[in-house]
């Protein structure tokens, strides 16, 4: 599988291009881009680790993986022990190894980053998890049943993590998921070429093997009443930030304008790329504009590219400001996505169906509240791009459906559930974590918040 490898373009920090399939081959399929490390490469990489006494890397990891410990086991070629060390803190290592923004987390603070390149912690984590999956995974131990019932709403990374932690503490956990598949964004959002669906499924199965029960097709607030939900001994809300934002520019409801969520769901969850073998349709644009600069925009652009389109990515700031993982920006460029930075759409053109998008160039002047340059439109710089499809990936908001139905649940201005550092909400036995509490963030932050909430729930249930 590691046949031909490109080194080349992706020298960006944290961009694991060493083990990538060549761009011209990978844009033709949905197979994984990054082939991962061989055992020899993994051992060699692990041997570079200084085994710091006060490892900074661990502080960079929201779930506090004992990184030096697992890396040492890899260096010793002791992969089962490495897997055990990983899963002590993280039940979804094959997923995190692939999608964590390592350059701003563990690898960003690795001491080696000061002089040379940081240890490729994510790649090693993925290697160990893949090795374990292929060689038979071992389940962590669970405590004796406590007789307490906990409901978890949503089966994304936050829900899965809380469920696993609580099951390991001996509680009876019921996860409710409204879709017909578990995994949240891992399943419907992040495409298979970045996160193969068998990897997601295997890690979900590991969580279920701990005794966690899962009810799919259950939309809490509708299929399960709020009263039923609040009847559990504890509740963990992990309903995500799935509500897509639209720009509010003219022409947005024309045929051929998608939210990234819709486009990605049609392809990743419903397999519309394989229509008519699968029943769900999706439009195949010849020229596609994707608006946004985050992971979601990169994913949408690269999916459209794989479906045969010429793709332009429109982003209102500069490339350096893009919030996407570095590796994915590099990958997208390698795959021939055109980047139109400092550009903002003003109008979508067409009669009924999209025929173009009007944009304006943006100047970067001053600083906005977040300290990032705040872009302003440059008068008279309007231009039109001929496209037949537009995908908006400008962000998502907390899903209001359930949380707005729970009386007395404190919410912030953006609709997020207000929690303390342990995930406690304004209702005593109700906790929340992941994107519903933070707004759209990352897989690993969702997992970190879920772990803290699970620990607090466990403490509360044991006190009673």
């Amino acid at each position, binding site marked *: 599988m590691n046949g031909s490898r490109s080194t080349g373009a992706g020298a960006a920090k944290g961009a694991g291009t060493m083990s990538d399939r060549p761009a011209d081959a990978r844009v033709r399929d949905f197979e994984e881009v990054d082939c991962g490390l061989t055992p020899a490469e993994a051992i060699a990489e692990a041997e570079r680790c200084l085994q710091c006494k006060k490892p900074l890397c661990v502080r960079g990891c929201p779930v506090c993986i004992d990184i030096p410990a697992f890396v040492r086991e890899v260096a010793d070629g002791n992969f089962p022990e490495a897997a055990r060390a990983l899963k002590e803190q993280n039940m979804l290592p094959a997923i995190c190894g692939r999608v964590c923004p390592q350059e701003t987390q563990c690898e960003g603070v690795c001491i080696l980053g000061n002089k040379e390149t940081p240890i490729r912690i994510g790649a090693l984590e993925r290697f160990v998890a893949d090795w374990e999956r292929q060689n038979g995974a071992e389940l962590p131990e669970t405590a004796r049943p406590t007789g307490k019932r906990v409901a978890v709403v949503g089966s994304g990374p936050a829900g899965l993590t809380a469920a696993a932690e609580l099951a390991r503490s001996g509680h009876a956990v019921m996860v409710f998921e*409204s*879709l*017909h598949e578990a995994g949240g964004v891992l399943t*419907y959002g992040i495409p298979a070429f970045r996160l193969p669906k068998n990897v997601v499924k295997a890690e979900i199965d590991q969580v*279920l093997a701990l005794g966690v029960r*899962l*009810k*799919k*097709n*259950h*939309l809490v607030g*509708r*299929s*399960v*009443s709020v009263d039923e939900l609040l009847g559990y001994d504890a509740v963990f809300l992990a309903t995500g930030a*799935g*509500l*897509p934002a*639209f720009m509010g520019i003219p022409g*947005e*409801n*024309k*045929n*051929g304008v*998608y*939210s990234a*969520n*819709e486009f990605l*769901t*049609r392809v990743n969850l*419903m*397999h519309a790329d394989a*229509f*008519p*073998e*699968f*029943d*769900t*349709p999706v*439009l195949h644009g010849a020229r596609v504009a994707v608006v946004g600069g985050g992971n979601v925009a990169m994913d949408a652009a690269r999916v459209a590219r794989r479906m045969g389109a010429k793709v332009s990515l429109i982003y209102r700031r500069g490339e350096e400001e893009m919030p996407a993982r570095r590796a994915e920006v590099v990958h997208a460029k390698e795959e021939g996505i055109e980047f139109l930075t400092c550009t903002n759409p003003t109008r979508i053109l067409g009669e*009924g169906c999209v025929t173009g998008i009007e944009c304006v160039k943006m100047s970067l002047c001053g600083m906005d509240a977040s300290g990032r340059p705040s872009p302003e439109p440059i008068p008279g710089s309007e231009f039109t791009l001929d496209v037949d499809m537009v995908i908006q990936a400008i962000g998502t908001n907390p*899903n*209001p*459906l359930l949380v707005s139905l729970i009386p007395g649940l404190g919410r912030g201005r953006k609709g997020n559930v207000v929690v303390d550092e342990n995930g406690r909400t304004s209702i005593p036995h109700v906790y929340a974590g992941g994107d519903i509490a933070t707004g759209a963030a990352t897989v690993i932050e969702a997992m970190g918040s879920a772990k803290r909430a699970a620990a607090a729930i466990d403490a509360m249930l044991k006190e009673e």
Partner: protein
Amino acid sequence: MKRLYKVELATKLADRVYEYWISAPQVARHARAGQFIILRLHEKGERIPLTISAVKGDAVRVIFMAVGKTTQELATLRPGDSISDVVGPLGKPSEIENYGTCCVIGGGVGIASTPLIAKELKAAGNHVIGIIGARSADLLILEDEMREICDDLYITTDDGSKGVHGFASDVLKKLLEERTIDRVWIIGPAIMMKVTSGVTVPYGVKTYVSLNPIMVDGTGMCGSCRVTVGKETKFACVDGPEFDAHQVDFNELMQRQRIYMGQEKVSLERFAEHRCRCGEGGGHHE
């Protein structure tokens, strides 16, 4: 682990119109008037929305017209067969209150939605007038059921083969001239809802329509179902499906319903061919 949803009863009501009872306890327990389910037949299936037309025990009734691939395939299922996924009840329930006199209008297969709404309005103390219309007498469904629920029931057919010769809008107009009507519900094809709701504008009668844009998840996560209501973008699956008719941009709705016409045709032709090869009648065997 896989939960399966069983077909309990399957009846053909009219040409291409079927009544199915599907066991889905979590839906049946909570279903209210105006809500719908989304089902997925099997691993390769698409998710399609269907209105909850009645509830009994653990089962919900859907009434659908076999127009394309998925509805035609659904119509091949026999009692005892299973559907891979059913989620619901979705959408906001109808705004039921004691308004006084209410008129509930169904056109074509849209009549499927009317009994639950009429029943809940009746239970809330309203005087309920039903108008059900179809192209011709043989396509008219749920007449007896509606007659039982409603205080008055009018029937219209486009060809005059039964009841009033004409459209539901004609009857509605006449009623509005004769008496006070406090609220109107209209459920049917988009064009019928557009025309019929136009009738109530001069009378200033609050009118609800149940919109049927193309949906995927049905939980507010994708925006496929977005509609313009009063110049604002709304997601029909969570903000609706019922909206104030006088605020709805029906032309946009009809435009968006046509997005996948080309692919729908391919899918249907492929299914028809597959059925010919495998012989009529059998359920799906994916």
